[in-house]
């Protein structure tokens, strides 16, 4: 399992840094757009870290399985000895390691740049890590369902964003320092549910995509 996961990590590693650049760029643009008013940044900033993170994940999803479908490597995956669910989960975990974790860590400087209080950085990073797992679990399904589709991009956004809402709401609560304990618990729940159910649904969808 770990073996396969690491493989998938290398495999899926094509665009690891892209979302990171996207995320940091996005958070850099925020103060530019909002102007230098400190008070405004202080209240609006931390939630924006969450939005930037969600968008960074969203931007990686479109090509997640589409590339595999086009270049014929999806076919090979279907002939694997391992169940497809496990392979998809491995891909999700690889994505979390390659994109989710760096983004969560990058959340620390981003939150500071957006004027979040320093003592809250720890929980923000942890909550981002959990939230990324939830985003990825849901995102796998969206990516799988739209893999062969002509206008995949919008579709993914439409399918996936409603499910992104709960983690964003509770994650922003953490970032804003409200009811941190409860929100973290709910985030953990979201992450576990998404990672448990997402790969099953995504694998079912992928089996139909090979034509």
């Amino acid at each position: 399992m770990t073996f396969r996961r690491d493989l998938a990590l290398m495999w899926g590693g094509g665009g690891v840094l892209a979302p990171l650049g996207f995320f940091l760029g996005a958070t850099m643009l925020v103060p530019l757009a909002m102007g230098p008013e400190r008070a405004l940044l202080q209240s609006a900033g931390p939630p924006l870290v969450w939005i930037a993170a969600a968008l960074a994940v969203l931007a990686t999803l479109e090509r997640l399985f589409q590339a595999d479908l086009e270049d014929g490597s999806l076919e090979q995956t279907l002939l694997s000895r391992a169940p497809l669910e496990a392979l998809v989960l491995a891909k999700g975990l690889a994505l979390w390691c390659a994109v989710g974790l760096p983004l969560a860590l990058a959340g620390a400087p981003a939150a500071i740049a957006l004027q979040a209080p320093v003592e809250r950085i720890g929980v923000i990073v942890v909550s981002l890590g959990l939230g990324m797992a939830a985003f990825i679990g849901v995102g796998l399904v969206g990516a799988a369902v739209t893999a062969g589709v002509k206008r995949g991009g919008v579709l993914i956004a439409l399918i996936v964003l409603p499910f992104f809402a709960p983690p964003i709401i509770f994650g922003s609560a953490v970032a804003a320092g409200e009811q941190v304990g409860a929100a973290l618990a709910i985030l953990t729940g979201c992450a576990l549910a998404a990672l448990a159910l997402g790969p099953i649904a995504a694998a079912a969808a992928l089996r139909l995509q090979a034509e």
Partner: protein
Amino acid sequence: MLSYLANPQRFMGFSAWAAPLFAVLAFVLFAVGLPWALFYSPADYQQGETVRIMYVHVPAAWWAMGVYAFMGGASFVGLVWRHVLADIAARAAAPVGAVFAGVCLVTGSLWGAPTWGTWWEWDGRLTSMLALFIIYLGYLALWSAVEDEEKAARLAAILCLVGLINLPIIKFSVDWWSTLHQPASIMRSGGSAIDPSMMGPLLTMAGAFLALFGALTLYNMRAAIFRRRVEAAELRGAGA
């Protein structure tokens, strides 16, 4: 002069003595300028001792822009006349300029903490200087991301020329935006508005930064030329 040096062979001969010369010059100027700036120049009547940051901050800011302008020129020559040495020069100068830009940002924000009461503000000049720093990083990253060196040189040169547009923005940002950062007081039309007793150490430090730039760039270029020679020899070996 330039066309004389355009021959890599002659350039190696020239840089063999010019690089150490610049290094010595930089050393001497720093040895004179740093104590002068830090101990023997007057404290500002408004800012007190913190003004001494200026002697690093301002030369770093000037040469961060100056180095970029140099790279712009070299990139243009490299693109239009296909000159390898110009490509190498632009590449060799970039890390030096990036460090200068970084020094300007760091000293600026160290200076900002006591005088403005903040490390960082999203003001026009600070933002455009940060943009310059990021452009440097992007330039270096592009160069290392493209495997084929010749292609990398051309692509990076294109990017460098496009980035030139940022220089006037930095220069005039203080006039265009109403900002925290003070407007030009030294290099402005109508003469300098700075106390002459600060001018001496400032210009010495500026000279020191320039000499440092010259030395580092020449050493970088020599290293790049040596590496290319080795690779060319290997290629010839593989072909035979």
